[in-house]
């Protein structure tokens, strides 16, 4: 019977990051992934590495992770592109809030600056006239998430992690996990299965939030920064059944990635034409020239959402030797590396770099 120091279930970017971190600490690690590596929420993500400042806990975790992401800045396959983030204000009221955001980010060590309308149009000439300005976060970047997940897993394998690819964990038991071929793996288990978390841990609430993305042909230099509306967080954190927000990203290839939509209660992965139209109209309202570009492909994905919007990271106290790293919603790529550090530090009994309490899974047990 195979025995490990940690059995990681799920090889999305969070699971792969945790596995990589664990083997670097000298642990004997197994990874179980039934589908493609990085093929779930990871593959549907835009790959924006962004500090979100609305929740102090979220900011602490993003900040920790952004520092760790610097390790990938020169790795070609990560497609790391330091385009910076531009948050856009449509109304003076939105611009009024920028000073406080800049201060919150500065306190966390993230450099940001308020920009007026003239600076905004200098940075992004294709924005629609009449915008008020916004906030620029120059050091933020984008990556290509599924490739990073594959790289992290490959690194873990080279350091002797044992991969059970094409295998699914069907049950947790007192000694470890049982796979779909009837075999048992023995050791502490880390459940990092995102939206599939309730299959193994139904006591932890998790909902899926569907999103659409569009990728265009290559139009280099049209868009230079990752662009978001300052109202984005209202959409991202709101409870509305469906919402859209302006979010456009320049890919290093010259392609333009257009988001974003959010829908609860949608299990069907099919592209919804009305939702797609709503999302694109939102994007066209900010960047009218997008209307004239050719889209190559549209796809959907599902974000794993906890009730309070924070991921579950830590031990599940009600089950011995069961750990969780799941529920990162739209911030899993940014926070994967910080999640791995936070989790493995706890697993090894060390004092974590940031306070783990806000992420403790026990807060949500039902």
């Amino acid at each position, binding site marked *: 019977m195979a025995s490990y120091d940690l059995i990681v279930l799920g090889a999305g970017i969070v699971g792969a990051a945790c596995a990589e971190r664990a083997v670097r600490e000298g642990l004997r690690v197994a990874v179980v992934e039934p589908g493609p590596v990085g093929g779930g929420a990871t593959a549907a993500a835009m790959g924006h590495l962004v500090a979100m400042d609305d929740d102090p806990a979220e900011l602490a975790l993003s900040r920790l992770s952004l520092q760790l992401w610097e390790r990938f800045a020169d790795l070609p396959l990560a497609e790391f592109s330091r385009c910076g983030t531009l948050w856009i204000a449509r109304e003076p009221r939105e611009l009024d809030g920028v000073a406080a955001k800049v201060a919150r980010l500065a306190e966390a060590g993230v450099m940001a600056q308020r920009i007026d309308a003239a600076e905004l149009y200098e940075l992004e000439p294709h924005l629609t006239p009449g915008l008020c300005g916004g906030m620029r976060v120059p050091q933020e970047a984008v990556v290509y998430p599924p490739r990073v997940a594959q790289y992290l897993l490959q690194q873990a394998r080279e350091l002797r992690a044992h991969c059970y690819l094409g295998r699914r964990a069907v049950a947790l038991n007192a000694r470890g996990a049982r796979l779909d071929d009837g075999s048992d793996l023995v050791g502490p288990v880390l459940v990092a299965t995102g939206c599939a978390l309730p299959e193994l841990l139904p006591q932890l609430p998790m909902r899926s939030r569907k999103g659409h993305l569009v990728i265009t*042909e*290559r*139009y280099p230099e049209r868009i230079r920064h990752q662009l978001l509306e300052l109202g984005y967080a209202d959409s991202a954190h709101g409870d509305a059944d469906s919402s859209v927000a302006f979010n456009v990203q320049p890919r290093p*290839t*010259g392609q333009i990635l257009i988001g974003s939509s959010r829908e609860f209660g949608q299990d069907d992965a099919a592209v919804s034409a009305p939702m797609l139209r709503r999302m694109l109209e939102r994007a066209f309202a900010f960047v009218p020239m997008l209307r004239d570009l*050719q889209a190559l492909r549209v796809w959907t994905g599902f974000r794993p959402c906890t009730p309070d919007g924070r991921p579950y990271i830590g031990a599940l106290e009600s089950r011995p030797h069961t750990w969780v790293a799941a529920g990162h919603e739209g911030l899993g790529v940014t926070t994967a590396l910080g999640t791995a550090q936070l989790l493995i530090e706890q697993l090894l009994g060390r004092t974590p770099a940031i306070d783990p309490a806000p992420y403790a899974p026990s807060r949500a047990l039902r």
Partner: protein
Amino acid sequence: MNAPRIRIAVDGCEVDVPAGASVAAGVALAAPHFRRSRSGQPRAPLCGMGVCFECRVRIDGVEHQRSCLVPAREGMQVVCDD
């Protein structure tokens, strides 16, 4: 009897093609390649029926036109390697 011919410009060079020919036919006569891949490889039509996307050029200012699907029209301005 000779078929009527029309004249298009490919990267600024004028080229005559038979009426009814595709833009791709004109590009093939005038240019060393149609486009370049992201890694810099020169590319040219593979399928000739709009599936492979390897013949994309700019036509009258509109990017990413599949030249194999677009009939040549008198005076068209075609830009390769865009």
